[in-house]
């Protein structure tokens, strides 16, 4: 089962880490206005990249990551297990995180759903 539930509700993307991940990442829920989302991409390869410097959170030998990272002045939220089913959501720097890296069910479907919702909200 994936680590995050991703839903679109009333103009916002609502991300809910499941179970203990709420604890590890010190995050109960993230709500991002669709107007601040720049795009979503299915990108399992992101897991192999350097994550930057970790703020509070958990990282068990790279397989399971629930934490906030800072890299080159950016703020990234990671909640990932393994190296598949990973979705990258790019967010406007005005938001507390400018990139979210999440394990989700059906990442390709989630990518399409989010990009379409963002486009519909703009037009």
């Amino acid at each position, binding site marked *: 089962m994936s680590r995050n539930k991703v839903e679109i509700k009333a103009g916002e993307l609502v991300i809910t880490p499941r179970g203990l991940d709420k604890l590890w990442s010190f995050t109960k829920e993230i709500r991002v206005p669709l107007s601040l989302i*720049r*795009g*979503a*991409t*299915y*990108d*399992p*390869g*992101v897991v192999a*990249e350097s994550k930057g410097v970790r703020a509070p959170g958990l990282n068990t030998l790279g397989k399971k990551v629930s934490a906030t990272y800072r*890299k*080159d*002045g*950016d703020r990234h939220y990671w909640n990932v297990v393994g190296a598949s089913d990973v979705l*990258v959501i*790019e967010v406007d720097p005005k938001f507390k995180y400018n*990139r979210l890296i999440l394990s989700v069910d059906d990442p*390709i479907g989630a*990518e*399409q759903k989010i*990009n*379409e919702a963002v*486009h*519909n909200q703009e*037009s």
Partner: protein
Amino acid sequence: MGRPREFDTPALLRQASDLFARRGYAATSIDEVVKVTGVARGSLYSIFGSKQGIFAAALKRAAGQRLGSRSLGERLDMKHYHGDPAEAASLLDLLNVAILEMASHNHEISDLVQHIIDTHGITAQALGQRALVRAGLTEAAL
């Protein structure tokens, strides 16, 4: 501090176009785009927002190339074409990828495809012909 380095965006989009045209949209990973363009993943996301953002920018660049005074559709119907066939072929390849893989469920891309088709007078014949050429099933008409 987290801002993308200077690099040649048109060249990046040309390389990305070649990749999407060759592999299609879904089968092109961000890993491949990073490898082919030499641009860091973080910079790609900062600039384009997503893989779809890269694809849309590549399609817009291809459509904005100098394609001559006659419409692309007319030119592709010509038996002896002496312009820049590579740019025209690249645009048709990207359009075919967009139509087959994305346009049915993606309004940003379908709106863009419709606009380019209308602007350049691209015919179904030209798109179909190019799809057959790409597959090696017929000789180039260009």
